[in-house]
């Protein structure tokens, strides 16, 4: 199945809700409206035969150059066009990606790869969970919640995957400072004559990275 046929099948099912598409070969991607992600994934798994969910992840576009969230307009960056333009123009702060693969079980060869994307605004829930289609999506959705604070709209009681439940915030958001610490047990006071850890200069001192 060529890229054109795949995109045609997707467009036939979703119509104008396929917002953008591109890429060649195994780098094919399509961006769809948030409300129809599950439908698109079902189509990929069912009719189109993409049987493996390779990965599910997100990116925070808060500081994407030229994006209207960043508050900075860099004309050099903004004129690069293509994918870059798409990220700055379409609405929604988080870009969620589902990476799919069509694997032939007998030969072990990859017959196609595709990435489905959608955008989610800050503070709103993502598209419905797909853990009934691919059980590994359970952990991947938990990781996206953990790191970005975006959870499927039908999984309100999602647990974190990597961090502890007491952790506040979502560290892969671009506004989470790299030098921020959240120890569960308060550090002991420094012995006399020693420098307390909080008095040390942070190693990374770039503006925006330190609170």
């Amino acid at each position, binding site marked *: 199945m060529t890229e054109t046929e795949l995109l045609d099948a997707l467009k036939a099912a979703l119509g104008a809700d396929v917002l953008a598409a591109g890429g060649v070969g195994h780098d094919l991607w399509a961006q769809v409206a948030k409300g129809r992600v599950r439908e698109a994934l079902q189509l990929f798994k069912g009719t189109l035969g993409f*049987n493996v969910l390779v990965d599910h992840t997100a990116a*925070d576009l808060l500081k994407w150059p030229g994006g209207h969230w960043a508050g900075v307009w860099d004309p050099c960056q903004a004129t690069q066009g293509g994918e870059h333009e798409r990220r700055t123009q379409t609405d929604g702060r988080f870009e969620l*990606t589902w990476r799919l693969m069509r694997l032939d*079980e007998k030969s*072990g060869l990859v017959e196609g790869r595709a990435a489905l994307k959608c955008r989610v605004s800050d503070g709103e829930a993502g598209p419905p969970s797909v853990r009934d289609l691919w059980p590994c999506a359970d952990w991947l959705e938990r990781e996206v919640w953990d790191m970005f604070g975006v959870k499927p709209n039908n999984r309100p009681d999602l647990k974190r995957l990597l961090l502890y439940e007491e952790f506040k915030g979502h560290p892969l958001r671009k506004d989470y400072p790299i030098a921020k610490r959240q120890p569960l047990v308060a550090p002991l006071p420094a012995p006399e004559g020693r420098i307390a850890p909080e008095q040390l200069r942070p190693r990374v001192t770039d503006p925006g990275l330190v609170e």
Partner: protein
Amino acid sequence: MTLPREISRTENEGLFSMGRKPVDIPPAAGREKRSYYLNMGPQHPAMHGVIRLLLELEGEKVRDAEVEIGFLHRAFEKHAETEVWNNVIPWTDRLNYVSPLINNVGYCMAVEKLCGLHVPERGQYIRTIACEVSRVTDHLTCVAASAMELGAFTVFLYMMKARETMYQLVDKLTGARVTTSYTRVGGVKGDLPPGFEAELLAAFAGVRGILREVDGLLTKNRIFYDRVNKTGVISAADALAYGITGPFLRSTGVPYDVRRAQPYLVYDRVDFEVPVGTRGDNLDRYLVRMAEMEQSMRIVEQCFKQLPAGKHSLEEAELIEANVMVDEGKRGNIGKIWDSTAKVAANLEGQARAAHGDVLAQEPRFDLPPKEETYGSIEGLMRHFEIIMWGRGIRPPAGEAYAAVEGGNGELGFHIYSDGSDRAYRVRCRPPCLFIMAALPKMLIGGNIADIIATFGSVNMIAGELDR
């Protein structure tokens, strides 16, 4: 390729089981049968790596299980956004720390895909050799550790000895046993050290000998066989639904291998087989790994036969001390510098001008120049600073790329966003063992508590890549 899996059941039947069947003992009068909970980990002597299993047991049977991960989370993905592109490479060592070279290659391939860089042929062969040596060390560690947890301590010592011979050669190649950081965007750090081929091939003879011994100690060993046979079973359909790849998937009979399905580096030029199992149990996973080590060594041997000739810097005739060279360069004695090689620190060996073009893409925007040019000419010095200085550095074009390699545990993917600046906008690592760990409860439930050790050992969980 199929595996010599079956030891004839008639040959070994009845040594242990004595024809007994498990008896379901009813509770005594006035008592009831209840399940209880057991907390295994985060630190447990039989679990390599920090991970917590919450088990609901009924006698010896596992009724339910839950996996808790994240104890080794070190914010790899967040750190990768704050450092320049090349500075991420040392962190990739720490993902899967038993096969660091594969991680190095995977990350650099993703960045190169974004930049449209082409690694010279010799560089690609060297990367392939490095990857396969890493795969051998990975599988040696996995089989050794899981056998030790089942009581086979001799096997552990033998295989660690074999791994150490590999590590010492990795040390020769990269300057470090484990924290290799060997690749660069556009190639590798330096050429192969002199005499590397002969030493590696000699070491392979030793590894093969140890593998034969281990095979004799384990494969037909009644105790080992009974512990791994038909335990921790997963079907091919389940494995695919969980996104499992690598030796784990191949043990279920699906011959998916990134090296075969989407050949990268020079895997399309070498002849190797993809071992597959039939039942997807712990025994098949052990056999697949044992067979894969042999295939990896075959790949390396073929790579050495095909390797285009190169020049290691130390084989060059005239060496000049680096500081002398700098002084000569300042005086403008370029002619003298041009024909000689800088004598540099040991960790920079193999990247002098003679070898540079063989192992690194000659693309000034992305590569450091050879040291002779940095020391000897203003253009070289500027090119060096353009890469090294904070705020300069390499700048891949804006966009995103996903590149996958076959890691020790399966498909290791790096999904990278660049906004055109000197740092990654986002680096996502697809860790192969996360998907296996997500499926772990499925393999444990219904089994015995003792099978947990065998099954967990065969997962080859590497907390470094699982938790990142």
